[in-house]
Every structure is written in structure tokens, then in C-alpha cells.
């Protein structure tokens, strides 16, 4: 028996010319929580996928419990007691929690004794302090309940090493606290846990040690008690970074957008936005908080003319002071009315950009109609591409390189660059920094602040409450499609927002 649950030695993984993992060695002891920290594209997920049998390492060794092993498939990983909780859950909606947990389990008998199994699972649940109703169907569950099912499933299968890939991205602060409690109980019980997260304060609060990757290379491992947010960031980025977001005081604010009693039914026939009213001011950043899927997408799309609904969306032209109704118009009609509105949608390649085209093809998405000729005007978009590439430091082999092949951060820069290029009056962004590295994220915050200073009304839908609290002037909280509160971001607390995010609009 070894005190190390798992040991990686000299692991390398290449994808074509790209080195995803370069000579990585790390160890997780039994009864320890290790945080794996690194920016996007640093190779964390690739490394974990090799542990869970999805990829096979090009070089290096994996030792489980002191013995060298070969993990060729997820089945091998299960057998070795390695369980991975992915960001996207792999559960069957119409089954209950218990049925999902025993699904795919190899047993001696062909007959499933659901009662006996349920009793076993209940024991597990009590042992670690989960909160889970085993008879509840998955489709009735919240995200955090589904996550619990995934974790219990792995434990029930005998996992001794749990890997959690950004488990808190979809949770409220309260749910995160509860998850951490459970993880601590598991640690007491001798389980080894690897947690991947971007949130530094979580790293500090939950883990015993932190291993850091940067651009595929192993940078080092530190004891959490010796680390600070600043020191971790520097290891992660490789240089000093200022972690403060500016928040200039708004001045000369004026009404830009007024949404009144907006209700939208989405394509699944669900009331996604329910009687929402608010005002967005020019010269201020309005943050929108809420659990994923609380109506953020539909709300922004309704304003952009991509979603039908009832109620009213009034846009005030800052020059003339005239009000224009946006609801019921399509994007082209909105543009023809002279409303300059910029929208950075959540699904960048699926909605904002055309993946197979280069930068010029994407720059002309909103402007290609200009001019009477049947032929495309190519020069303007090319110039704009060069300008965006230079100003936002887009890393691309050439402007004609398909944007699909660019990294997430560069894709976002192309999109944001185009949207702010035609000096909008209203700028809406959905999860603008999702998947971006720290430097790019701060570059985006900076761009948003610039727009705010220019008098643009900025609507920022975000998931990281710390950022929302630092960047926004006001925060609107959505819960189940309803507005559960609008707070002053300078005085609000994370806990208050967290409560509003789950308060299922009894009032209002």
C-alpha cells in the first residue's frame, strides 16, 4: 500500500503540433484535496482525461496505489477507482436518481434488487452528508442535485479518486459551500480528490495543495496555507497581474433602454422570461446575475430582435430623445431604424460568428449589405480585421485563418471587436469572459469600461459573482425568468445575491 492515491510521472500528450501536456508529474495523497489550477488551454482537462481513460498518454507513467497501470478506456478507470465528474452531466432524464446511480453497474445477478441497492446508496449519502432524494427523477432536479447524483454514482462504483471539473461553475455560493462540506467529509474518509476550478478563493478554502499548469507545462505545487490569490495568479500567468477591476463612477447617465413587463416563451414552450421590467442607463454597466438558464439568453435575444415576446422594449435615441419599440422587430428592422445595438451572444461560434470564415468574413456579418452593388465590398472588412487584430492583440496566423481554429479568447476578441467597432449605444454581452484566460478577461473588462465611459449602456450577463460585484454599477438578479431583485453593486454582498438567485420569486 502506498500513501499516494495516484502518481503521474512525466506525462506528455500531443495533438498534432500542439503540446497539450509536457512532462507533467504530480501526486495526490489519500485523504487529500488537490486543486489543479491553470488558465484555459493550459492542459488541465487533457491531463484529467488521460486519468479517466478518454485519451491515452504519448509518454509517461501513471501509478495507482503505487503500481503502474495502463488506462485505455473509461472502463479501466472505473476498475481502478477513478471517477470523473464532468462539467456536462451524463444522466438519463427520465430515470430516478437511484436508477441513474446503478445504471451500467456490472453485477453478479441479472436481477436488480432496487430496494437493497437503494439502502446501500442511502448509507453512502448519510456517511458523507449529501442531500439527495433517490426517488426523484432527474428532470425534476436542479443543477446542484444532478451534480450530487453524479458524485454519488462515482462513489457507489467504488471511486477512491474523484476528479471534479469546474464543479462550482453552475452553483450558487450556498450550494458551493455545501459541496465543499461534502468534499471535506470524503477527504476525512481517506478519498483523494482533484478539483479543477478557476475561482482562486475556492482553491484557497477547499484544497490542501495546489498544482499549477501553464501552457501545457507543469509549473509547480504549493501548500495552500502558503499561497495567496496573488501568488497563485502569478504562477498561473507567469507574470505580475493586477487583480483589481476599475469601476469609474458613472456620470451623465441617461435612460437608454426600458424593458416593461416582458414575457417570452422559448422554443421549448417554456416561459423563459416572466414579466421582467428594468431600465438600462447609458454610461453605466448593468450586471445580470442568475443561475444558468434563468432567462438571461432569452432576455438578451428579445432585445436583439431574435426572440418573440409580450410587453415592451423601448430604446431611447440619445441624440433625439425619441423612443422606439424594439419588440417584434427582427435584427434587420432594428438596424434600419437606426438603433445601434451590439450583442455578444453566449454561443460565439454558433450565433455571433461564422466559424469557417476568416476575420474579414466575420467582420462583414453586420455590414455586408452596405452599398448597392451585388458584389461584396472586401476592403473595409479587411481593414477592420487588421485594426481589430492589432488593437485587441488577436493571435492568428493571418486574418483569413478560420476563426473556428482560434483559441476561445481570440474568438471572443474578434466578436467583441466587431461589435464595438460600429460605436453602439447599447452593448449587451452574455458570459463575455467565459473560458478566457485572466489577461484576456481583464482586457475585456477594460473594453467594457471604455464603452461605459463613452456613454454606452452596457448590459453584462455574468456568472462569476465576484466579477459582477466589482465591475457593475447595478446588478439585476434573475431567478426562474423573473427579476428577484435589483441591487446597488457597491453595497450588495455575494450572499445577498446568492439568496436572490434561488428565491423563486414568491414576491414580485
Amino acid at each position, binding site marked *: 500500500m502506498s500513501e499516494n492515491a495516484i502518481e503521474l*510521472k*512525466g506525462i506528455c500528450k500531443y*495533438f*498534432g*503540433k*500542439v503540446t497539450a501536456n509536457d*512532462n507533467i*508529474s504530480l501526486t495526490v495523497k489519500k485523504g487529500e484535496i488537490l486543486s489543479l489550477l491553470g488558465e484555459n488551454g493550459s492542459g488541465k482537462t487533457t491531463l484529467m482525461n488521460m486519468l479517466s481513460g478518454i485519451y*491515452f*498518454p*504519448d*509518454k*509517461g*507513467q501513471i501509478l495507482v496505489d503505487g503500481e*503502474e497501470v*495502463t488506462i*485505455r478506456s473509461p472502463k479501466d478507470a472505473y476498475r481502478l477507482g477513478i471517477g470523473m465528474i464532468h462539467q456536462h452531466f451524463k444522466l438519463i432524464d427520465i430515470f430516478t436518481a437511484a436508477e441513474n446511480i446503478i445504471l451500467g453497474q456490472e453485477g453478479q445477478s441479472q436481477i436488480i434488487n432496487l430496494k437493497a441497492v437503494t439502502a446501500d446508496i442511502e448509507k453512502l449519502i448519510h456517511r458523507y452528508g449529501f442531500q439527495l432524494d433517490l426517488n426523484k427523477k432527474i428532470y425534476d432536479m436542479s443543477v446542484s442535485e444532478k451534480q450530487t447524483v453524479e458524485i454519488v454514482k462515482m462513489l457507489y462504483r467504488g471511486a477512491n479518486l474523484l476528479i471534479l471539473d469546474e464543479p462550482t461553475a453552475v452553483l450558487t455560493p450556498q450550494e458551493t459551500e455545501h459541496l465543499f462540506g461534502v468534499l471535506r467529509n470524503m477527504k476525512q474518509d481517506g478519498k483523494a480528490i482533484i478539483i479543477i476550478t478557476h475561482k482562486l478563493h475556492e482553491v484557497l478554502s477547499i484544497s490542501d495543495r495546489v498544482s499549477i499548469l501553464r501552457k501545457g507545462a507543469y509549473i509547480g505545487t504549493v501548500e495552500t496555507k502558503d499561497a495567496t490569490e496573488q501568488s497563485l495568479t502569478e504562477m498561473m500567468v507567469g507574470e505580475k497581474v493586477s487583480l483589481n477591476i476599475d469601476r469609474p463612477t458613472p456620470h451623465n447617465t441617461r435612460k437608454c433602454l426600458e424593458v416593461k413587463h416582458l414575457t417570452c416563451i422559448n422554443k421549448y414552450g417554456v416561459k423563459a422570461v416572466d414579466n421582467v421590467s428594468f431600465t438600462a442607463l447609458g454610461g453605466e454597466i448593468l450586471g445580470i446575475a442568475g443561475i444558468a438558464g434563468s432567462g438571461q439568453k432569452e432576455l438578451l435575444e428579445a432585445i*436583439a430582435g*431574435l426572440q418573440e415576446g409580450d410587453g415592451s422594449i423601448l430604446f431611447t435615441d440619445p441624440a433625439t430623445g425619441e423612443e422606439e419599440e424594439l419588440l417584434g422587430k*427582427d*435584427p*434587420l428592422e432594428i*438596424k434600419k431604424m437606426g438603433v445601434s445595438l451590439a*450583442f455578444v*451572444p453566449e*454561443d460565439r*461560434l*454558433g*450565433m*455571433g*460568428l*461564422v*466559424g*469557417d*470564415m476568416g476575420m474579414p*468574413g466575420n467582420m*462583414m*456579418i*453586420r455590414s*455586408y*449589405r452596405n452599398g448597392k452593388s*451585388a*458584389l*461584396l465590398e*472586401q476592403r473595409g472588412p479587411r481593414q477592420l480585421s487588421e485594426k481589430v487584430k492589432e488593437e485587441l492583440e488577436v493571435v492568428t496566423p493571418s486574418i483569413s485563418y478560420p476563426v473556428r*481554429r482560434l483559441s476561445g479568447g481570440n474568438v471572443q476578441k474578434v466578436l467583441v471587436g466587431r461589435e464595438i467597432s460600429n460605436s453602439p449605444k447599447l452593448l449587451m454581452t452574455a458570459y463575455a469572459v467565459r473560458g478566457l484566460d485572466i489577461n484576456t478577461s481583464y482586457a475585456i473588462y477594460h473594453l467594457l469600461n471604455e464603452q461605459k465611459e463613452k456613454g454606452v449602456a452596457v448590459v453584462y450577463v455574468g456568472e462569476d459573482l465576484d466579477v459582477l460585484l466589482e465591475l457593475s454599477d447595478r446588478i439585476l438578479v434573475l431567478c426562474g425568468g423573473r427579476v428577484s431583485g435589483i441591487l446597488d453593486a457597491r453595497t450588495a454582498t455575494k450572499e445577498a445575491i446568492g439568496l436572490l438567485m434561488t428565491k423563486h420569486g414568491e414576491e414580485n
Partner: protein
Amino acid sequence: MAAPKQKEPFVRIVKRDSISLGKSVAIRIAAILLSLAFCAVLIYSITHSNPVQVYRSMMDGAIGTGRRTWNTLRDTMILLVTALAITPAFKMRFWNIGAEGQILVGGIATAAVMRYCGNSMPTLLLFALMILVSLAAGLIWGLIPAIFKARWNTNETLFTLMMNYIAIQLTSFFSIAWEAKKGSGNIGTINQKTQAGWISTSFLPDIFGNFNYSINVFIVLTLTVLMFIYLQYTKHGYEIAVVGQSENTARYAGINVKKVILRTMALSGAICGFAGFLLVSGSSHTISTSTAGGRGFTAIIVSWLAKFNPFVMILISFFLVFMGNGATQIASEFQLNESASEVITGIILFFILGSEFFTNYRLIFGKHRKEANE
């Protein structure tokens, strides 16, 4: 360090991020050579004929004489124009597998004009009318599934396929209505004596010889250039590309997706109708249920293999027709039956399509892990 107890995977498949032009051409040439070698083994084992001789007579069959060369060129142009026709639709990710039917209705319309107006109209007017009705017929045939797709989001693959059968039935109907001899069930050559409505085969005889299809070639090559410009440099072409990539992005850009679907399918159908005109007026001078001859389907292969580049389609169409015509020759010369030619073309296509895999992925055979750090 003890050797691992289990074997690592024998072969792993890794996606390439890019491939040089030279390499991708080399892979395709290797695929063609391999397929020829494979066919050679097959031919030898079945017929015991010398494969080299067989290939030589294939060459002979396709471009052995001036006449054969012109026939090969004529068939190439028909295949090429059909591929050009379906390309806008496929680029929009509208699976138009109804080119066959769109060609047939264009052919019927052309035949009708030739039959009823052939001997009573001035040539110029006659041709204008033939072209116009063939375009219109194809356009309608292409537009019907597009309307249903835009309106009720029906499945265009099934819809365009079904439309083929209607077109074939229509052709059967007219074959009997217009039959040359009672009870024969076929139309025979239209305007055999006057050749009214036939595209001339003796254009510029000093340059191209007394018998040529140079007019067909000129028309189709012009269309090729136009289609390239349309797809690459016009606003319409841009809209087609955006809709094909993502309807959501198209809506975001304010593109009227329904309008683009209708417009593009109208164009695609109309050019297919024009291919029908070229077939009836420019080569067969008759119409039957086999006039389209599967070109509507082969054209899909041409279009995709060329990655929607009209100029590359010229090469691919030529290659496929060359193989087809050559194979017909060996079928008769070596007393193989007609299907032998199809078998060979099929094998070659299979290899070419299979080689796509190697341009996108590369294989790594297990031999790693040895250098694990000690």
C-alpha cells in the same frame, strides 16, 4: 521499472490540424494508384487478362479518337453543370438530392418546345424559348421542396428524392404520349431530319474538327466562372455561406433565412433544368427516363470532393467521366459485361472517398511510453 502489464492500444487516430497542399494531393494520387492496383488484381483474378492492357484500352475508350474525346468532354460538361447546379444548395446545407428530377423536367420542357415549335420558329427565338422553359421547369421543381422546407420545415432530403420519382413518371408519361412509333414507348430522335433545336456540332470546324461539342464546353465553362464569382464574391454567395454554417448566426446578422433558402433552391433547380436542356438539345436529342442517368447523384460526389470549388469540379467531373467511358470500352473489348465498368468506377470512388479520412486524420501506431523519465 517493470514493463507495463497490459499492451497499449495498437493504433491511435489523431486529427490533423492542417495539411499541406502537396501532402493532400499526394494522398489522393496514392489513393487512385492503389485503387488501380486493386482493380488490376481483381481483373486478373476474375478474367486472367493483362491489367495493363485493360487500362490501355480504357484510355483508348475515353480519348482514343477525336470523336471519343468529344464524347468524353460532352459528358464531362453535363456532369459539371449538374455539379455546379447543386453546389449553392449544398453549400447552404440544403440536401438537394433531387437534381435527377430537376434535370428531367428541364429536359421534358426542352423536348416539348423542340417538338411543337421546332419547325415553325426562327432559330434564335427557338433557343431562347427552350432555355427559358427548361430553366423555369427546373426552378419550379427545385422551389417546391424549398417552399415546404421554409414554411413547415419538412425534410428536404426525402422531399427532393420523392420529387425525382414524380419527374420519372412524368417522363414515362410523355414517352408514350409523344412516342415515335405506336407501341414503342419511346420518343425517338426529335427533329431527326431538320435538326431544329439541336445545338450545332460543327461549330468552328477549322479549329475543333468537323464534329465537336465546343458550344457545350464554352457554355458550361462560362457558367463555372460565373458560379465561382457568385459563391465567392457576391452578397448572395455570402448569405448562402452564412446560412449553411449556422442559421442562428444568419438570423443574428439579420439575414432572412427563408428567403435565402427559396432563392438558392430556385437557382439550383433552374441550373439543373438547364442541364436538362443541354442533354436534350445538345447531346441526346430525345428524352427518356434514363436521360439523367444518375448524374444528379454523381454530381453530389463531384461537388463535395471539390469542396464546393467550381474549378476543382472540372477536374473531378472529367476524371469520373473518363473512367466511366473508358470502362465501357473494356467491358466490350474484354467481354466483361457493362457492370464491370461500374464496379471499377465504384472501387476508384471508394478509394478516393476513403482517402479523405487520411487527409483529416493521421494514424499513430503504438510505440511510445518507452522514454518515460527515470
